[in-house]
């Protein structure tokens, strides 16, 4: 099963490499990885999506917790949560396909954020499934470039991940 693990990490040099190194060292798999500072400058928040059965996920969270730089973590998939990813896509927009791109963008509630005579740059947010669907829909028209942030997530309701 796919899991989304969110980690509060000491904002220290080398901390990220310990997390990433752990995954490769122990043969765990990383599908997406996203990291940025939080409201507390001493902490970064890192979100990783990974695949694995319960035993593997248990090992991943235990080993992550063992890293001295990992302050706290949560497996968001264990509860209700919100998952978002942002994608920027350059698509070919020539002649008749210009309109089709525009229509598809509207259907997906995406936005065109940059325009040239031959290219639209589209911004879209959503869960990973929605982004995949958009890529599929655009593929026949001609995708030139894709940049995805990787998944970020947060629990629903009052539950918080903090110190």
């Amino acid at each position, binding site marked *: 099963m796919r899991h989304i693990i969110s980690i509060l990490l*000491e904002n220290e*040099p*080398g901390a990220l*490499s*310990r997390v990433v*190194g752990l995954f490769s*060292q122990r043969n765990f798999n990383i599908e997406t990885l996203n990291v940025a500072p939080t409201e507390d400058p001493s902490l970064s928040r890192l979100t990783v999506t990974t695949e694995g059965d319960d*035993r593997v996920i*248990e*090992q991943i969270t*235990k*080993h992550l*917790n*063992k890293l*001295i*730089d*990992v*302050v*706290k973590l949560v497996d968001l998939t264990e509860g209700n949560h919100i998952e978002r990813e942002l994608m920027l896509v350059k698509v070919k927009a020539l002649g008749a396909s210009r309109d089709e791109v525009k229509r598809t963008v509207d259907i997906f509630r995406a936005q065109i954020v940059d325009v040239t005579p031959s290219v639209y740059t589209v911004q879209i947010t959503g869960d990973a499934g929605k982004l995949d669907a958009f890529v599929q829909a655009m593929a026949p028209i001609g995708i030139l470039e894709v940049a995805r942030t990787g998944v970020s997530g947060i629990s629903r309701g009052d539950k918080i991940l903090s*110190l």
Partner: protein
Amino acid sequence: MELLSGADMIARFLQDEGVERIYGYPGGAALHIYDALFRQDKVKHILVRHEQAATHAADGYARASGKPGTVLVTSGPGATNAVTGIATAYMDSIPMVVLCGQVASHLIGEDAFQETDIVGVTRPIVKHSFAIKHPSEIPEVLKKAYYLAATGRPGPVVVDIPKDMTAPTERYEYVYPKKVKIRSYNPVTRGHSGQIKKAVDMMLKARRPVFYTGGGIVTSGASENLTALVKRLGFPITTTLMGIGSYPQTDAQSLGWLGMHGSYESNMAMHHADLIIAIGARFDDRVTNNTSKFCPTAKIVHVDIDPSSISKTVRADVPIVGPADSVINEMISLLQGREMANAEALPEWWTTIDGWRAEREGKLYEASQPGERLKPQEVIEAVYHITRGEAFVTTDVGQHQMFAAQYYKFDKPNRWITSGGLGTMGFGFPAAMGIKQNFPDDVVVCFTGEGSFQMMMQELSTCKQFGTGVKIINLNNGTLGMVRQWQDLNYKSRHAHSYVESLPDFQKLIEAYGFTALKVEHHDELDAALERTFADNDELVFLDIDVDPREHVYPMQVPLGAMRDMLLSKTERT
């Protein structure tokens, strides 16, 4: 307020931390630190002849004393030479702090002379590492390093120290930090009471229980408590290779150690048990054999300080995260006034176990006859007797290591010193050196093989400099015996590069360093040679003993089999 340079802070910190001896080797990036050590005399520095030996010596000291070992090396090749020793300590959870010189901060990343990203290189083999960013943080970072190395599940910690951090011209306030806090690091101090209660109930209901205990008992100093618990219950106990000595081996309840080359009765008892109480052990592949066939009828209680060790390879029915000492204590108090539910079951279980013991009694190996070459096993037994089982015993890696584990009996923890997890040839001699230098009144024996010894024999020079009287027993079979054994068993005796041609004349070699070396070629010469070897505890003696090269280590678990599937000799199999 005291102002000190970074280098002086390091020297002062080591004094304040109570570090008596450090193992190291100088070089450019560490020279300010060496100068600071020169200008004090509380912390003794042992100059090794190779940085790997520094780590093994500090590791040996740590295993024998239970306190962190300390290593000091220079950047680049100094640090990379230490890597094998750091990995060795990591695999066996040994507390160690490794101070590495580094090129000056402004040069980092420029491929400067002797620059290596040692924090990067060692990342997967350390408990944690630090890079010093400002001289003023040195006391705090060092305190954290020792704290992390020694608490929770212990392990090596690397501290990378750029040369400019130790410059004599820059001085900062020094205060010894008595305590440090690391917000993300809070090792558990006791186990979950409900789980412990559950475990105790299961123990009382068990019909065929076995304790299976590991290095965690030794590192956490829980042997006394463990012994009390095992005595109280009257259960059999087997230990891992690393747990040897965690329970007195000459006691009737001890089955010896288990796993690939463990005792027949240990492996049989594990296989047939209905309850396994694992404490401070990690179910590694050298113990479990094929996990899918592992102990089919047993429920498993697993106590460990490290949650990631629990249910890693074998699922625990009752996981208990906590320090062995306090969990065992709690078990003992919960047992007060309670009795086994099936009083008749335990004596029956012992009858079965005694049957297994009797099956192998007197059949473990064939002794040599007068005039013949000695069997390695009988050499170990003879050393056991002459040292009355009280020596610190280190080993290298190979057949001699397994024979030493099988035939030297340990009644105390911290005396059996071996590289179990990494299996590092070259470990034994420098580890023995580190122990002897810190425990000069004790007898320190290193069992080695002619292959392993040659990996770290340069330390003879260090022993000469510091007058270190270790006893080196070279079980010389003229071959990389353990490799050869596997080749005999799995490759139709095609001995690809397991034969050590052109061995040195060990006697001459040892004598070149000014030490005594004795050669034993036959059975008849052993006793006198041992007398001579152990005559003076302060003298390094090298005993080169020709042993039978055809000998194999048995029992040996059959690959992919269950615990009970063993070869018992060249011709017998369970």
